[in-house]
């Protein structure tokens, strides 16, 4: 297992500004791939952050040489898929195909990224569907609670800030074809383009095919997004978001933590939070669910720390309306206990073996591998970082973990947001 990734992944740059990471595995016939370009929401013009999202959504609506039905027909006739989506930093794609169809599928991918057909009529229909999805998301208690939390923790335009659903609907509705065309022209290009693949795949074939597709594509500098905003000052705030006719409430307790994943305290803090609520055998599931029976699901995690962002810690749970107050109190008590007394040597040892074992189990399928390799590349980490991860975890000390809890966690200033139908 030592140096598994650095030994097996073939890293190349078939074209300047396009990096490939290819991992041949023992699986037969199937190939999973993923890729990204740095043109996500944060690269949208400030006046409308949804332009990037709509541009990504239009990539499967036809190219200069093929209408949308020809595109879908090519993929579906070989049982392959390519899906595009938008994140804060990237437009991403994931896909799969059988080995013999790789040529066809990557050729189409190239066309979709280079020469998409941004038709007015298609944009209008896409907007209608997106608005429908956004309207539906108003019923989603977990999503609405998360939006509420992020708005309390971060200022507008911060990578971790969230627009309200109504704000998004308004922005989506106002995007014009011209804006999408301009955005595509200015941001879709070589430079920070990463591509990963895993499965029954040859690195030479991937590099050859991608070179054919992108050798004449325009190039630009790979400039990372410059973060010029920080989280709001930590103050315990409360918000209830009423949504009628719901039998379960989603609740978040959270705070900004002020550091990103490259900070030296990141892994000790992550370990501390994992002990609190990282999996079923962690404290929150063991006490709030397994012993007290107050919830079906509760967990705690560190998020929003990638690409230089100052992230946040959040604890999430669901409760029946009549158990919300009791559940919240019990959760706060667990957090208090964790803050006051830290974690134990035994817990640290157990979670280290959990994480090391999970690292191995994660090698089980190609889908997970392609995503993991891509994420590493997006964070501008070397392949060796994937192999170093178990070592980093192994070297975390108890003292360091407990010191980071005291340093970053403010249990009395947690922001509370809940969404659902409240009893009172």
């Amino acid at each position, binding site marked *: 297992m030592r140096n598994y990734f650095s030994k097996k992944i073939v890293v190349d740059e078939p074209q300047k500004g396009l990096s490939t990471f290819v991992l041949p*595995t*023992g*699986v037969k016939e*199937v190939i999973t791939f993923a890729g990204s370009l740095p043109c996500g929401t944060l690269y949208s013009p400030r006046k409308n952050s949804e332009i990037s999202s709509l541009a990504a959504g239009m990539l*499967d609506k036809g190219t200069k040489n093929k209408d*949308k*039905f020809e*595109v*879908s*027909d090519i*993929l*579906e*006739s*070989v*049982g392959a898929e390519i899906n595009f989506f938008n994140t804060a930093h990237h437009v991403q794609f994931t896909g799969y195909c*059988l080995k013999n169809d790789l040529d066809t599928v990557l050729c189409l991918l190239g066309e979709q990224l280079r020469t998409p057909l941004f038709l007015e009529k298609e944009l*209008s*229909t896409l907007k*209608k*569907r*997106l608005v*429908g*999805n956004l*309207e*539906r998301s*108003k*019923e989603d*208690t977990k999503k609405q609670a998360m939006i509420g939390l992020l708005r309390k923790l971060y200022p507008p335009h911060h990578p971790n800030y969230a627009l309200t659903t109504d704000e998004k609907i308004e922005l989506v509705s106002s995007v014009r074809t011209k804006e999408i065309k301009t955005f595509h022209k200015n941001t879709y290009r070589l430079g920070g383009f990463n591509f990963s693949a895993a*499965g029954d795949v040859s690195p030479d074939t991937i590099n050859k095919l991608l070179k054919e597709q992108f050798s004449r594509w325009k190039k630009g500098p790979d400039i990372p997004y410059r973060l010029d905003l920080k989280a709001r000052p930590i103050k315990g705030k409360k918000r209830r978001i009423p*949504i*009628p*006719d719901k*039998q*379960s409430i989603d609740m978040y307790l959270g705070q900004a933590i002020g550091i990103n994943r490259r900070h030296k305290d990141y892994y000790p803090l992550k370990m501390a939070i994992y002990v609190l609520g990282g*999996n*079923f*055998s962690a404290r929150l599931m063991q006490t709030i669910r*397994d*012993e007290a*029976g*107050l*919830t*079906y699901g509760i967990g705690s995690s560190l998020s929003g720390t990638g690409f230089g962002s100052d992230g946040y810690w959040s604890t999430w749970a*669901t*409760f*029946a309306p009549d*158990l919300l107050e009791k559940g919240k109190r019990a959760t706060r008590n667990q957090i208090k206990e964790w803050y006051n007394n830290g974690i134990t040597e035994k817990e640290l040892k*157990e979670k280290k*073996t*959990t*994480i*090391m*074992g*999970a690292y*191995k*189990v994660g*090698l*089980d*399928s*190609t889908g997970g591998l392609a995503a993991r390799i891509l994420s590493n590349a997006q964070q501008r980490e070397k392949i060796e970082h994937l192999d170093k991860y178990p070592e980093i975890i192994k070297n975390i000390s108890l003292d360091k973990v407990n010191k980071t809890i005291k340093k970053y966690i403010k249990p009395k200033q947690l922001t509370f947001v809940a969404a659902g139908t409240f009893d009172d």
Partner: protein
Amino acid sequence: MSPKNKKKEPGFKFIKASGGIEEYRLSSNGLRVLTLEEHSAPVTTFMVTYHVGSRNEAIGHTGATHLLEHLMFKGSKKFNKEKNTAIWSELQNIGAQINATTWNDRTNYFEVVPSEHLERAIAIEADRMRNAFLKDEDRQPEMTVVRNEFERGENNPFDVLDKNIWATAYQAHPYHHSTIGWRSDIENVSTKRLQEFYNTYYWPNNATATVIGDFEKKQTLALIKKYFGEHGRSQHTIPKMYTEEPTQEGPRRIMIKRAGQTGIVGIGHKTPEGLNQDTYALQALGKILTEGKSSRLYKRIVDPGLATSLFMYDFPFKDCGMFISYVFLTPETDHNSVEEIVLEEYRQIIKEGIKQKELDRAKAQIKANVAFSRDGSYAVASALNEALAIGDWTFYSTFMDHIIKVSRKDIQRVAEKYLIEDQNTTGWFIPQN
């Protein structure tokens, strides 16, 4: 491969092999064992499938199979909190993915482990097969956990609609109720009833142990014999579920009115038992109608913006099933027009059949799905689990062979046979603002 060509494994009887998967029986107690060695990653999945699901429940204890599944994690003779060997800790502390699921026809418990820890997974599953505690003091807090799971499902309009369509389409057969059960049954079923359920169905002769991935067969079968061999077979015959659904004699309709934002249309038609030969044509028909942007319903409904998305499912179940298309409407679209488009496409296929190109595309999609169902040890075990549930694990290994044989005439024939008005149950979710 004939049984004669197989190397004899001590204590086991070799039954058959298909698609690289081998079936054995533990001679002492009838436990079925399926194995497939695959060494590309240092990971093994171990899964135990019990041939009991919510189809084995009746009024008053709906949801009992699922609640019992939860209680199975509360401890057994050798693995419990008192001994500091609780099941979750024992497995999660080695990085295993561990969980269990319950559905209509089966309950399964699984561990995806770093290969060197396979023995621990086998030991735990063997112990809880017959030595689970199932204490009343554990049921009380677990009941509220499961009730919150139920409540979370009730938050979701699609879950609510789907539950109601099944409850309307099936009146006598236990597929009438969903696996989570009715709220009052979850709250009131007794621990004694759950113990009876356990003592009726949780026996080696009503279970299948599946091992997929990076293991050595001889050693692993020896471990299975060592741990599961501690149990005898049940002294009773495992009860058969005998309730049959009477013939439906006309279309049915259900409407759910709740607070919400957008509407949903669900159109279901009864289908036969999973092992029926028509299942293969129905699976291909489902792809032709809704899989991908070239599919008939996508082109007519989602592409012009009448809906945000749609999908259909026709899971093969043990006794009978349902071919259901779901459409998630955009805000201004009315339920009626979308329902009419779906039924019009059904009628069109019944009248004129499909194009060869459509069938070829459906087969290519299924071929890729089948190839990906071998991507990773858990994927294989999970697919086998569903085939076991309907009564024949080779349904998984021979699925593509059957799909290849499906013809355009078969598609038209099954559409004509099953997508008929008298077998239809339609449901609308109507949002109330």
